[in-house]
């Protein structure tokens, strides 16, 4: 078995109109910039995929990565916890103009809903959000005298994930806090596509150090020197560059 894919274009070829796409990362750390840009390339060449629902903690920063994906108009709805950043102008303008839908979810609830999707737990109860606007319309149940909010799982058609090393069976490691939502999203999508900076033979990762076991991964693509969103934004980058 070898889950390696030949290139980024192949890696994102399965994303089609109307899909729900989880995109890993917390701000720029762990964001699969190259996979996102490959998706933009396809849209610019073919007009697809569009009408995407994107799940990410944030709403992008500057004009690269997730912000660029939103800027192209490919995203119909965003599910996130914190759509602010140093430079959130792309999302903010579209949101205030009513051009993009937002589902705001507390960060821990977002993480747990994604894990629940991956773990076959259709719903769970959390104290988070009880008595606030974000629990509006949600089922409330009391346990041991305390009120909790019922939350549903989140699943996706595709997850685009950034890991550090991967073996050909799809076992993954991450780099420091770039781990964040990535291992959860691997579990919660029908198809998980991962960019890694190194592809190893099976046995190349210590079995004790595997963070995402290969069962959660469908495809791996090599991006040896991934760009970091913060560096791109500090350099004033835009994607695609032609838009400059």
């Amino acid at each position, binding site marked *: 078995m070898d889950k390696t894919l030949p290139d980024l274009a192949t890696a994102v070829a399965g994303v089609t109109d109307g899909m729900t796409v989880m995109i890993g990362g917390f701000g720029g750390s762990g964001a699969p910039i190259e996979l996102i840009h490959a998706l933009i390339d396809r849209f610019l060449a073919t007009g697809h995929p569009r009408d995407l629902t994107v799940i990410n903690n944030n709403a992008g920063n500057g004009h690269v990565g997730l912000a660029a994906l939103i800027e192209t108009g490919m995203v119909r709805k965003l599910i996130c916890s914190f759509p602010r950043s140093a430079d959130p102008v792309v999302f903010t303008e579209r949101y205030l103009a009513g051009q993009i839908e937002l589902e705001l979810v507390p960060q821990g609830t977002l993480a747990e809903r994604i894990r629940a999707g991956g773990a076959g737990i259709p719903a769970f109860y959390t104290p988070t959000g009880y008595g606030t606007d974000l629990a509006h319309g949600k089922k409330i149940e009391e346990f041991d005298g305390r009120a909790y909010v019922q939350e549903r799982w989140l699943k996706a058609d595709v997850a685009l994930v950034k890991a550090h090393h991967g073996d050909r069976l799809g076992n993954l490691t991450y780099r420091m806090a770039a781990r964040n939502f990535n291992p959860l999203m691997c579990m919660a999508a029908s198809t998980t596509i991962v960019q890694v900076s190194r592809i190893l033979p099976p046995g190349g990762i210590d*079995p004790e150090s595997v963070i995402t076991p290969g069962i959660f991964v469908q495809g791996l693509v090599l991006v040896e020197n991934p760009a970091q969103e913060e560096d791109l934004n500090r350099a004033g980058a835009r994607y695609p560059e032609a838009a400059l």
Partner: protein
Amino acid sequence: MTAKLTPTQIAWRAAQDIADGAYVNLGIGFPEMVARFQPPGRQAIFHTENGILGFGEAPAPGAEDWDLINAGKKAVTLKPGTAFFHHADSFAMVRGGHLDVAILGAYEVAETGDLANWSTGPKGVPAVGGAMDLVHGAKRVAVITDHVTKDGKPKLLKRCTLPLTGVACVTRVYSSLAVIDIEDGHFVLREKLPSLSLSDLQSLTGAELHIPAPVQDLVTPDL
């Protein structure tokens, strides 16, 4: 007495349906035998509830490491690409629908797909393990079993009489006499031993066998 497949032959037959690269959980005991018969050129990846993916065969006697065991508490070995994880992640794999197939033993299977394989009734000490999770998690749940009980009574029934493991979960039965799918609440006969007549097989089966297509011969090596 009717000719029938040995447990080893049933395990062999079940192994033929496992695709290359499939993620597979084998129930403890008899189903573990399925791992021995992977067809040439195919390699399944085995999952065990206690937190290993991609483990290898049993070690030589005396070479056991008792921190490296399967759900049946038998020693296994590492293979390149093995991964360890804790029990909640392990059952996320199970419950979350990430396993391609689970192959389990059975006391009874109903034409509804209901399975009874954990309790023979109120006497004794009940024990369930991971079976109830597996039957609602794996994409495909298959059973391997003798076609009848030791007393010659059918194990394939209209309804289970023993406490259920899961409702409407089994999709294929590999028995000592036949291969039977469960579709829309019916047993659908796919293969039977060539020496066995349809009416004899029906008489050993506790619910109607549907035969919408030609029945193949169930042929296995001498094992």
